């Protein structure tokens, strides 16, 4: 067995998986609280990547940054997360909140409309061409290696920062007041509002957090893979949701696990399966079908108990 190839695939799979996991977290949180499949989530990720790009340009561009590289990267992350988060809140306020008591299909269609709107607005504003983050110019092409395992700086950055974000999120949901309110709202919205929880505010903050994570994922993708474009949100969103479903939708550790699995599956498929680089998405799809058939509520999800 070629261990060098194996470790390369593993590293790129884990990197990709961290990005998917961050997207999946947003999907999963929103689904847990609203039972809404937020199709526009992938496009929030795309907008986050563009906000990070323009933040970089605003700071002088990759070739001549106006501050040290780590400050620029931090500012890019902050910009991407704020941009994504605010976009998420606006979408919730105007496209989903009026439909909270409508039949289930109405907000879904509304979400499709928002997704289409954002994609084509990005096409209109930013053009159809790819934008280059220029990571090499900004950070350099340095790599770390442990034995056979080679890691580039953006990869380390992605894995470490997504881990940090997940820890922060877990603490936030488990330990803080707003986290408690979120859990209560997702458990039973009506009862939560009767207990004096401002449900609208809780939902808005859920959207903010989830969309900020997607924005961070967008910036990470830009740093690792270099190129961003207006249509990148569609497939990434699809895979993020797949990850959420595989892990068990509504479950936060499930979303992380699912993201990692999807990233690794995609990466190994590219390396090992026949014609993997062309059909990697089909293999991920097959994995989704397989897991849904075996465990319809995902790996870490709880089976839905319906009371009548």
């Amino acid at each position, binding site marked *: 067995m070629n261990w060098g190839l194996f470790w390369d695939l593993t590293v790129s799979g884990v990197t990709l998986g961290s990005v998917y996991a961050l997207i999946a977290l947003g999907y999963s949180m929103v*689904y847990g609280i609203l*039972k809404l*499949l937020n199709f526009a989530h992938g496009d929030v990720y795309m907008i986050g990547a563009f906000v990070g790009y323009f933040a970089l340009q605003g700071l002088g561009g990759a070739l001549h940054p106006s501050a040290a590289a780590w400050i620029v990267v931090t500012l890019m992350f902050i910009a991407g997360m704020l941009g994504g988060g605010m976009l998420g809140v*606006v979408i919730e*306020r*105007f*496209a989903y909140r*009026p*439909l*909270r*008591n*409508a*039949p*289930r*299909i*109405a*907000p*879904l*269609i*509304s979400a*499709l*409309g*928002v*997704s*289409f*709107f*954002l*994609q*084509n*607005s990005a*096409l*209109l*504003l930013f053009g159809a061409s790819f934008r280059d983050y220029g990571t090499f110019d900004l950070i350099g092409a340095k790599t770390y290696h442990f034995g056979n395992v080679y890691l580039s700086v953006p990869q380390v950055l992605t894995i470490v920062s997504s881990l940090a974000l997940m820890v922060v999120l877990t603490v936030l949901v488990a330990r803080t007041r707003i986290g408690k309110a979120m859990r209560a709202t997702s458990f039973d*919205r*009506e009862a939560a*509002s009767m207990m004096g929880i401002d*449900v*609208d505010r809780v939902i808005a903050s859920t959207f903010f957090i989830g969309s900020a994570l997607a924005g961070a994922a967008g910036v990470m993708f830009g740093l690792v893979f270099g190129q961003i474009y207006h249509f990148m949100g*569609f*497939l990434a969103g*699809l895979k993020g*949701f*797949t990850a959420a*479903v595989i892990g068990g939708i509504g479950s936060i550790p499930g979303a992380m696990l699912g993201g990692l699995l999807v990233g690794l599956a995609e990466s190994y498929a590219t390396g090992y399966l026949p*014609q993997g680089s*062309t*059909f990697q*998405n*089909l293999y991920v*799809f097959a994995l*989704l*079908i397989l897991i*849904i*058939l075996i465990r*319809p509520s995902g790996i870490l999800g709880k089976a*839905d108990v*319906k009371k*009548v």
Partner: protein
Amino acid sequence: MADEPGASPMDAPDQPRIGVDEWVASVEGKREGYEGLTGRLQRMWDTLPVGGRLLVFAVPAAIFPLVTTEGNVFRYGLITLIYALLALGLNVVVGFAGLLDLGYIAFFGFGAYMYGILASGHSGHHWPAEFAIPVVILAGAALGLLLGLPSRRLLGDYLAIVTLFFGQAFVVFVNNANRINFPFVGHVDLTGGANGLDNIDPLDLFGWKVTSTREYYFFTLGAFVLVMMLLYFVNESRTGRAWRALREDPLAAEVMSMPVNRLKLLAFVFGAATAAFAGTIYGAVQTGAFPGDFDVGLLITIYAIVILGGAGSLAGIVVGAIVVNGVPELLRDPNQAEWVFYVAVAVVLFARLRPWPRLAGVVAGTIGLGFALHAIADAAWPRLTDGKSGGEGALAHAVESWVLLPSRPTQIANFAFVILIGALLALTLLKDVWRTVALVPTVYLAVFVWENLLIQQTAGATRFILLGALLVVLMNARPQGLFGTARVEIV
């Protein structure tokens, strides 16, 4: 849950009416009588028998190609009919049975490719259409069954994601299927890959070779009427009633001993077969099948048709198809787009603003604001008025002396676009007088963005932006669609 105490259901027309029987709700409205011209039309429509309703649509549709050019028949007629046929199939899945199938376009593509494999210069087979069409329809139905099998255990949203992925997988597959090495057979170029499957035969039906656009139009019209009648009868049958029960409440339907799984599969099969049939016609019309034709854009277009018309309503589909295909087609030509835009703005203002002094104030204010800004800019920064309108003709010339047209508009128009979206959203939060006052600069800003940015992209991004916005607005204003019936919740 979020209702304030004391808000009666009558105050909120978009909310389900609680405690009212479905029959009462449907008759109540009729007895009150409709008012005005639209009311009279509505009453005539209600009393029309089903065959009559069909004629109201079919007769103008049959006359249409006789009075216009070949190009118009294709753009406005044939494509609308194919979309409507597609929407009929989707309506079975989404409208009748309430299953959210986001891989629907794959069946359409499958029909086109399958027909292309059975009858084209590319594959070397040349089946006559009377054999090929049934085979394609059956194969499409079988594929629908296949996708339905793993999906029948899934709840609504999981189904959506699996089918969406399936649609995506289909595009990836046809894009690359020219390079697959099959076991035993070896290398077969099935779909032509990214270049598409070309040289598809025209339909050859019992010796009648369908070649011209008009012939295709009449063939598709016939097919559409046939499928529509078939689906109408299916919907009125036992199965149709069971579908509606499934849509309203799957759990209750199951408790009533309805075979839920079989009903779901049946809806999938009907939808897939209809889409495959539409795909056959599309492939033959285009004499080719290309992977790019079957992506998410088309899916959203067809959903827009079904939802706009009102899921479950057959008449709604026809109207939806005409609006959703017709309006973007009108937008394709910048000159027409110019007119469409101003007429649309005027219609919205006239329909929504009451009483009329307020309307007059907004119109006068917008026009005045435009001339004032133009005069100021002309005096102070002439570069802001140097540009040209994207359109041509009398309207564009009139506009050039009213709207600010910077000589290099790209950057400023991009910012204006973002501000416009913010302004439109903020407008929905304002009340009464403030809304009217804020409307004046917003309308002017909209015109500015239109003239400087949107009109250049009318063939591409602009149409889709408008389509996406239309879906969101429509869902917020009227979740049941134009022709749909409002939901009644019985407590």
